[in-house]
C-alpha cells in the first residue's frame, strides 16, 4: 500500500486528475507492484554503474545546418485551439 496522500502527490506531479475510486485502487495496486519490486533488494548493487542504454556508444551528433521541411499550417493542423498563429491555452493562474 502507498498512502492516498502519496497517490495524490504523484497524480499532481503527473497532471492526472483521479477519482476517489481510482485513488484507492492505485494506492493498493501501486503498493503491490512496488513491494513485488522490492525483491530486487536481495541483490547487492553497490558500485554497479547504472545501465541507461542497452548498447554503449557515444558522440552521436549532426552538423549545425538548418533544415526546415514543413509549414506552420501543416504543423499546427492538429492543434486543439489556435489564435493568430499561436497555440492558445486557458489562463495560467
Amino acid at each position, binding site marked *: 500500500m502507498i498512502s492516498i496522500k502519496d497517490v495524490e502527490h504523484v497524480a499532481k506531479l503527473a497532471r492526472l486528475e483521479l477519482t476517489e475510486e481510482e485513488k484507492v485502487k492505485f494506492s493498493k495496486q501501486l503498493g503491490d507492484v512496488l513491494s513485488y519490486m522490492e525483491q530486487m533488494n536481495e541483490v547487492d548493487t553497490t558500485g554497479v554503474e547504472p545501465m541507461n542504454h542497452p548498447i554503449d556508444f557515444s558522440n552521436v551528433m549532426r552538423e549545425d545546418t538548418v533544415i526546415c521541411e514543413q509549414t506552420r499550417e501543416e504543423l499546427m493542423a492538429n*492543434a486543439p485551439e489556435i489564435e493568430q498563429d499561436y497555440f492558445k491555452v486557458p489562463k495560467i493562474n
Partner: protein
Amino acid sequence: MELLKKTAVEIREALLKKEVSAVELTEEMYKRIEQVENKIGAFNSLTKEYALETAKKVDEKIKNKEELPILAGVPLALKDNINFKGYKTTASSKILENFVSPYDATVSIKLRENLIPVIGKTNLDEFAMGSSNENSAFKKVHNPFNLNKVPGGSSGGSAASVSALESYISLGSDTGGSIRLPASFCGISGFKPTYGRVSRYGLIAFASSLDQIGPFGRCVEDVANLYYAIAGYDKKDSTSLNVKVENPLDTLKNDIKGLKVGVIKELLTDDVDEDVKKAVMSAVKVYEKLGCEIKEVSLPLLKHSIGIYYIVATAEASSNLARFDGVRYGYRTKDPQNLMEMYTKTRQEGFGDEVKRRIMLGTYALSSGYYDAYYKKAQQMRRLVKDDFSRVFKEVDLLVSPVCPNTAFDIGSRNDDPIKMYLTDIGTICANLIGSPAMSVPCGFDKDGMPIGLHLLTDVMKDNLLLQAAYNFERETDFNKQFANI
C-alpha cells in the same frame, strides 16, 4: 482462399508470373478485411487510397519489367503507433483519436521506398502498454484461433491481421515482448531485432531504451525480408546503430550444425503449462537433430527482470507521455477553467486505466526520495542481468525458452491483477533489457488448439544468426502452415 494463405515469398512469384496483379491482391485483402474484421478488430483505420496507389505503381513496374523491391506489392499492416504521414496515428488512445500524422516515421519512408502497400493501421494496447490488447481505447482484438481469447499484446492487431489472413506481413513494436507474445498467441513468426537496428524515429515512444520496431510474417523468410527492408542506421535516431546491416538471406538457409543451443532452466519451471513445456522440449529435440549442441543454462537474475522492467519502462513512459498535454495536438478537455484543469482533465479523460497506472508508477519511481531505491537500483540490476547473459553467451550461441508460460487466455480473465498480467512477459522482457534480438516461431498447439511459440534469443548484433536458427527450425516443422478457421 489459397491466395490469401500464401507467404510473401509466394506472392512475389505470383505477381511476377502475373497470376494476380498487385491491385487485385490489395482489393482481395480489403474484401477479406470486410468479411472478418468485425470478429477480429485488428484495424483501427484503413489506408485504402495509399495501398491502391502503391499497388498500381507495382503493376506498372511489373508491366515495364523494371526491377522490383523484394516485398513490393505485398499488403502490409502497420501498427497504429507508427507515424504514417497524412493518415491517423492514434496509438489506440482517446488522447490521439483524431491525430493525423504530419510526418513519416523512418520505417514508413522505407515502406514507401519498397513499394509496400500499407493497407491499414492496426489496433494495439493503448500506447503499447499491455500484454492482451484489451487496453485499446477503441475496441478489443480477438484471437483468430479462438475469438474468446486474447491475441496477446501489445501488437495484437498486427499479429491477428496476419493470422486472420487480413494481411501478409505486418510491423509491430516490442518493448517487453509486444511482438513476440502476440506472434506466439496467434501462431505466426515475430521478430524483435537488436536495439538500434531499426530506427525508432516516428514510433510513438513507450519506453525509449526498450522500444524496437520489428516484423511479423507467416514464415521466417518473410520476416527476414521485411526486417532487411526496414533495418539500418538512421541519423534521426541517436540510438540507432551505425553498423552496416548484412542481408539475412545470405545466410538464412545455411545449416546450423554445431550451433550451441542453451535451454534456460529458469523458464521451464513448474509454472509453465504442460503443453507448452512439451512443445518447447520437442523443439529442443529438433535442434538436436539438426546437429546442434544442447546445454542447460542458468540465469539466476532472470526472476528480477519483471521488477527491473516495470520500473525502467514506467519511468521512461511517464516522461514520454508528458507531451500529451492538450496544447499542440490531440484531445483537450471541454472548456477548462485554467491551465491546471486543462492538464489534469485532459489527461484524466484522454488516458485509459493501464496507461494511468503506469504513469503513476513511473512518476513515483522517479520522484524525489525514491529515485535511488527504484530507478537507479533497477538500472544497476539491468547491468547485472546483462552481465549474466554475457557470461552465458560465452558458452552458447542461442537461447531457447517458451515465449510465455501459457497460451492465449480468455478475454477479461486477468484484468484486475496487474502483477499476474505483468508476469506473462517473463520470458520476453530480458531481450529488451539487454538489447538482444529475439523472436517467436510457432512450435505447436495446446490441447485446445491454441498456438504455442518458441522463444529464440542471441547476443546483440547476431540478428542474422537468430533468423537462420529460426528458419532451420521452421523447415523441419509445419506449425506455421496451420491456419485459424474464422
